[in-house]
């Protein structure tokens, strides 16, 4: 267990949707610390609230009640501009479907969040990120000239280059074959190990989860289990237990 202050703290987080007459509790009182410098996986069956949890932590969605604190910043009550600024400065994203801007080169895509924020990338750090993702010779290419794995590596680099407090990855390997997927997971792992980056990944793949330090299991909007130093087998077993209870 890390003793450092958490990168994000979630307290009694609730998110309810109204669907016709019935009320759906996507998050039903989640309390959780996302520890700094660790690689955390959020898992759970469809509808368990794992995506909603990530969206709320990443300032993309607003909870119905409860508290999310990213670093020192309490998200509740922040307006759109403040949330935008927070995303820009504190958070990095890796999406399932890459989401690169087709008109920009790989390099421009990597530096896009910094450019939007009006910041210049730290050249040494940029070099190191590019080196890590192994795209040195592809920087001038446009997304459609890159393979899926390469595109996702560009996306990872884009998330890392601003040195955000937390990188959120939403099923980052969902659209990739297993080899390209392993490359991307390796990248995220190394960013944690070598640069102390905090990474939170939503996934339903036990193989992907096995790359992380800790797995948080959600079911019906609640944390039902956590696993330290998970393996594929322990994850499968825990998931089976959750499914059995559900």
């Amino acid at each position, binding site marked *: 267990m890390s003793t450092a202050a958490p990168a994000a703290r979630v307290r009694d987080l609730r998110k309810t949707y109204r669907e016709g007459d019935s009320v759906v509790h996507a998050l039903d009182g989640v309390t959780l610390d996302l520890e700094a410098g660790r690689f955390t996986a959020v898992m759970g069956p469809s509808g368990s609230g794992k995506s909603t949890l990530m969206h709320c932590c990443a300032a993309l969605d607003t909870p119905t009640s409860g508290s999310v604190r990213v670093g020192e910043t309490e998200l509740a009550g922040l307006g759109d501009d403040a949330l935008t600024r927070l*995303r820009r400065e504190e958070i990095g994203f890796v999406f399932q479907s890459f*989401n690169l801007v087709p008109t920009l080169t790989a390099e421009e895509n990597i530096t896009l969040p910094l450019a939007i924020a009006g910041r210049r990338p730290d050249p040494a750090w940029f070099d190191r990120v590019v080196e890590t993702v192994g795209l040195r010779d592809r920087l001038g290419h446009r997304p459609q000239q890159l393979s899926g794995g390469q595109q996702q590596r560009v996306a990872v680099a884009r998330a890392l280059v601003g040195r955000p407090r937390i990188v959120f990855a939403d099923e980052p390997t969902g659209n990739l074959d297993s080899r390209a997927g392993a490359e991307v997971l390796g990248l995220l792992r190394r960013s944690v190990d070598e640069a102390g980056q905090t990474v939170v990944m939503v996934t339903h793949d036990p193989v992907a989860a096995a790359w992380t330090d800790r797995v948080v299991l959600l079911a019906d909007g609640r944390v039902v289990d956590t696993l330290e130093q998970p393996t594929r087998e322990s994850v499968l077993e825990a998931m089976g237990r959750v499914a059995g209870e559900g």
Partner: protein
Amino acid sequence: MLRYALRSLLGRKVRLLMSTLAVVLGVAFVTGTLVFSATLDRSFSTLFDATVGDVVVEPVAGGSPRRPEAAVPQSLVEDLADLPGAARADGRIRVIGVYVVGTDGKPVGGFGPPALAGTTGDAPAANGTTGLVLVAGREPRGLGEIVVDDVTAARAGYEIGDQVPLVSAFDDATLTATMVGLYGFPGGGSMNGASFVGVEPAVAQRFFLDGADAWTTAWVTAAPGTSQAELAAQVAAVLPDGLRAVTGDEAAADAASALLRAVSFLTTFLLVFAGIALVVGAFLIVNTFSILVAQRSRELALLRALGASRRQVTGSVLVEAGVMGLVGGTVGLGLGLLTAVALQALFAALGLDLSGQALVVTWTTPAAAYAVAVLVTMTAALLPALRTTRIPPVAALRDDVALPEGSLRRRGVLGVVGVAAGAGLITLGLRPDLPGHWWWLALGVLAVLLGTTAAAPLLARPVLRALGLAYERALGTVGRLAALNTLRQPRRTAGTASALMIGLTVAGTLAIVGASAKASVDATIAETFPGDHLVSSAFGAPFSTSLAGRVAGVEGVGEVVRERLDRITWAPVSASTEEGTEEGTEEGTEEGEDLPVAATDADDADVLRLTVLDGAVDLAPGLAVVQQALADERGIAAGDTLDVVTPEGPATWRVSAVVEDNPMIFADVLVGTGTYDAAGLLQQDWLLVVLVADGADPTAVGAALSEELADQPTVTVADQHAFAAAQREPIDRIVLIVYALLALALLIAVLGIVNTLALSVVERTREIGMLRAVGLSRAGLRRMVTLESVAIAVLGALLGFVLGTVFGVVLMRALREEGLEVVAVPVGQLLAFLVAAVVVGVLAAVLPARRAARQDVLTALASE
């Protein structure tokens, strides 16, 4: 398949309506024009029959017979009434130049339609219609009483019993009389903007014909069973020399022709508007359908995969276009009827009251509306529809479906060919010696326009790149993203910009023509302005000779030179020295063409700044000076003779000089006052040139002149500066039309840009979500969309700017022969157009930008 097409249409109705709007506007102009013309046609016969008799007897020579000898004597009128085919005959007096001064101190009426005065009476008008007769009050009796036509009285603000001030071009410049009755057309008919002041016949004879028992014209009414032509033949047989008989139908047609010209100008103008709207609309439709087909390619591929044939898929797109055309045609038809009503109101304001006539809608009007609308939309949708055939059914299963964008090379080749061919044609068109050079010019302009449109996606790249650099420098990444977005699909961007391009091309061309025309006017006036001040009629009509004496009496006035103007006719065999003999006049039946003649005192000719081309200016009796235009047209040189018919009979004048065209001489032929008076022409002045006495202050004299003539609202005093300003005024009015055109073009362009942006925003939903997720603020996103919009607008404006300037200069070159020698490029105005384009860009982006910014980040990210 049909149901599918309709469903998909309903799903995008707002968007499709927007692209139809240009078509709606075009159709509205077309139908409005058609309906108005039909209505006008229907009411024309009543309108003009009421203003003529069955047979009109009038002097052969033009001009107003001021002298009793030239008029129709009462004895003749009595003889005419006794003709077997005549039911009755009425002598009438009609003169031009008596203005009713309104309660606001301004004369009623405007430019063009005459201010008539004459006799009252109840003479039946042509074809059994009722003419201008008493409709209220009573007939005038004696000197101090008049009747006024009801429209003029209403416009002037007088009631029966009021004292009405008049300004006349006759001996008494100002008069006041009691209005005792109103005249009007109870059976339909219109003064067509003219005003009428009627007095008792004896009073009219005293005022206008020196008291002779005679008339300026006579109306002969046909007895039942006698046709106009039969009666005219009977009348002609008893007429003395110098008078002729015209059937009412001919006279009505003559009277109508001037109005028809004005109307045809307006309808041509509206049809040009319609044409531009439709062409631009077609561009928008091509663009919209291209985008829709591209966006729906997965859906269309699915249809193909489910077994729809190529033809069915293409057909479904065309059906959508056809339905759009029908909707556009219907809305346009409705708007067109409103346009016709508006035109009626416009004409009523100008004095042509058609309110009694219901709108005439023949079957051709809706047929034309729907034909135009459906044809334009379906033709425009054809290319995008055909492109759907390239979608393979398997595309339904692929993730990234994009229609293959063909290479732009073909566009480039088309562009180069079009522009080169156009340049060649324009070169031919600039050679006035070639027959039909205007056609070559028009074809050339069209070819250049089409070539540029074809090549626009290629031309767009450097422009957008440059803009992108500027954006990036000024606004950073958001700017760069915006510029790159416009470069994604150069065809789409260029297609959208084309709408603006065409509008600004037309506006730019006309702006240059307008500015050049104004510069030409200024240059000509600077060259020819005589004396220090001009006293002229504000209405392009003559004024009383008594004013010259009053002007001469103003302190500081040195000399006053008058110019008079009247109309005579050429001798039936056109004048030239080669023909020599005058056998033509013996026939007496053949009419000569009208010939306006101006006159000034022989010793004052040097005040008018005439530039002699041939001979030496001499205005002694029997001599004439001819302006270049007429000399060129008729091959006249100094020493030749002119054979003319004057109210005093045939005359032969010798040409002393040919001079350069001079706008201060109001007719092609200038004679001395002696020659003019001997010809029995109208004793009214058109222009007084005032020379300030030595040592007097011209400005002070000008003010004194204005004060002296304050009671004459029909005349103005102007120095060179003011005169030039007044002359530029009609051109300014044309410039206003340019702005109307520009507004129309901008409106359509806004729709096009809104459409394209809205579609692009939808297409890029997920990308926009990502940008928001990685930290682009709402304001930043809005700015990005706005910048895209501005880039499209600026692209269109720049292309239009260049084309408009080129076309404008080319047109001015072509017009050089017409005396428009100065080419002025109103840079300020053209730049203002550019600014307007930027504003348009900003406005067009408002809705799409808001839509993009409002998009929920998560939903956007989750979208396909």
